[in-house]
């Protein structure tokens, strides 16, 4: 009796663990070989802006940086400049706002590749293409072309509904539970940056929820219109002239390859791609 009870408890524990691990990690593969990861609902803070300013002693430490060197080694703020920096940084700070992601969704584990684009659209608009570039991200696409891809995929599969993620859905998946901004050494490990071309998807380190290349490689279109502000509004605009781009590209660096960056198209073209969402 004791043995049977123990076995039941063990089985229950294992099952429970499996369910929990599956929640947020479950991956499906669709008809064009695209892997999508299940993202569980939750909350995040968006647009928290607290620009750091440094006391003169800290500036002296930074003097090893070549640009600082060029300006005079060890040159720090004067007392007046430090006070101005403190006042400006404090006045410009924003607490951000809470965003609730209420429904689970699947999002691309990788950026849409040239091979996947060809299967759906029958063509390849990319700049960086050859006979062997199916695993590179598709690029040189406008927001309208991204929408056309989603529409064509929906038509092909019929039973599932794909779309571009909203900026908040994108950022929530990119943050993968992180509240603060990302330390630069981590960005360097996960993002293809400061390069002359794109890299095959999935070559860099994934984020905590298993998504690759959310930072760097290609900018990714999201559904939202751009508000011409540093961050999104709590209620995104319903119209506008441009659409939001997230995640930076291979031309970016650690300064803009952060999920906080709220950019907009058209950008360069040849470093603009997409990652798509599948509704659960």
């Amino acid at each position, binding site marked *: 009796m004791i043995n049977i009870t123990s076995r039941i408890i063990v089985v229950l524990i294992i099952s429970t663990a499996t369910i929990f691990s599956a929640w947020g990690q479950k991956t499906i593969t669709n008809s064009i070989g695209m892997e999508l990861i299940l993202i569980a609902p939750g909350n995040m803070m968006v647009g*928290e*802006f*607290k*620009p*750091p*300013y*440094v006391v003169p002693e*800290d*500036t002296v430490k*930074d003097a090893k940086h070549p*640009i*600082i060197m*060029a*300006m*005079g080694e060890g*040159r*720090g*703020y004067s007392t007046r*400049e430090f006070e*101005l*920096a403190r006042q*400006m*940084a404090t006045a*410009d700070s924003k607490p951000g706002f809470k965003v609730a992601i209420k429904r689970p969704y699947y999002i691309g584990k990788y950026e849409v590749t040239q091979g996947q684009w060809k299967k759906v659209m029958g063509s390849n608009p990319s*700049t*960086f293409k050859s006979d062997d570039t199916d695993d590179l991200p598709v690029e040189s696409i406008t927001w309208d072309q991204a929408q056309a891809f989603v529409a064509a995929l929906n038509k092909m599969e019929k039973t599932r509904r794909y779309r571009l993620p909203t900026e908040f859905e994108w950022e929530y998946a990119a943050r993968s539970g992180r509240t*603060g*901004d*990302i*330390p*630069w*050494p*981590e960005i360097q490990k996960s993002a293809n940056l400061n390069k*002359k*071309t794109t890299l095959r998807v999935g070559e860099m380190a994934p984020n905590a929820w298993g998504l690759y290349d959310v930072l760097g490689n290609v*900018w990714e279109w999201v559904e939202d219109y*751009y508000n*011409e502000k*540093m961050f999104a509004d709590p209620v995104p605009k319903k119209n506008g002239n*441009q659409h939001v*781009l997230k995640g*930076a*590209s291979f*031309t*970016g*660096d*650690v*300064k*803009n390859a*952060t999920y*906080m*960056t709220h*950019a*907009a*198209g058209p*950008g*360069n*073209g*040849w*470093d603009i791609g997409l990652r798509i969402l599948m509704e659960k």
Partner: protein
Amino acid sequence: MKIPYILFICISLKASLVFAQIPEGFVPLFNGQDLDGWHISRTSHQGTTGNFYVDNGVLTAKQNPFGQGSVLLTDKKYADFELYIEAKIDSFCNGGIFIRSTESAQAYQIELILPGKTGALLGEAMQISQSADARDMERVWKADDWNSFRIRMTGAIPTITLWINDVMMWEVTQPKNDFTAGAVSGMIGLQLHWSATYQALPGGFNMPGAWRPEGAHRFRNIGIKNLSEK
């Protein structure tokens, strides 16, 4: 009636003085009143909103909000051209004049920084094959005053020449086209450097010296001669 007439004369005189200083054969790129013909890069790593404005006829760049920079770009692209621009730059503010810039502000750059290598040829957001340094700046540069830059750029593999206050600083022919995707034309840009991240980052660093609080770069008499149209 007399006062408005005098005002009209004064306004006309001021306007003509502003435009009169663009060398003959150059087309104005800046009207002295607004940023018509220019736009902010929304994908530059310097920042996406920027703070460029016209103050008393002068195109002014100043950080706002704190720490965020930006790049202001012409709406038009130019292949072979000669650019004329006058700049007055506060010290400890890192800016630059971008040539053949992409929309996300990859470009060849004429550095503007004091103290430092003002007039140097550098790459912005890209590696360039050959850089160059301005020379004799102690003699040529007018401190705390307006200084003129004339920049000529020609060729798919670009040859770039710089004059400051009509003194030739350097001429460089790159060994190759350094641009991603081999661009042979691009926009004129003005850089306002970032100096702080969105938040303090463990393991990262900031660039407090890149833009002094309240510092500004100012530009006027901007004109271009399109050499591709000849």
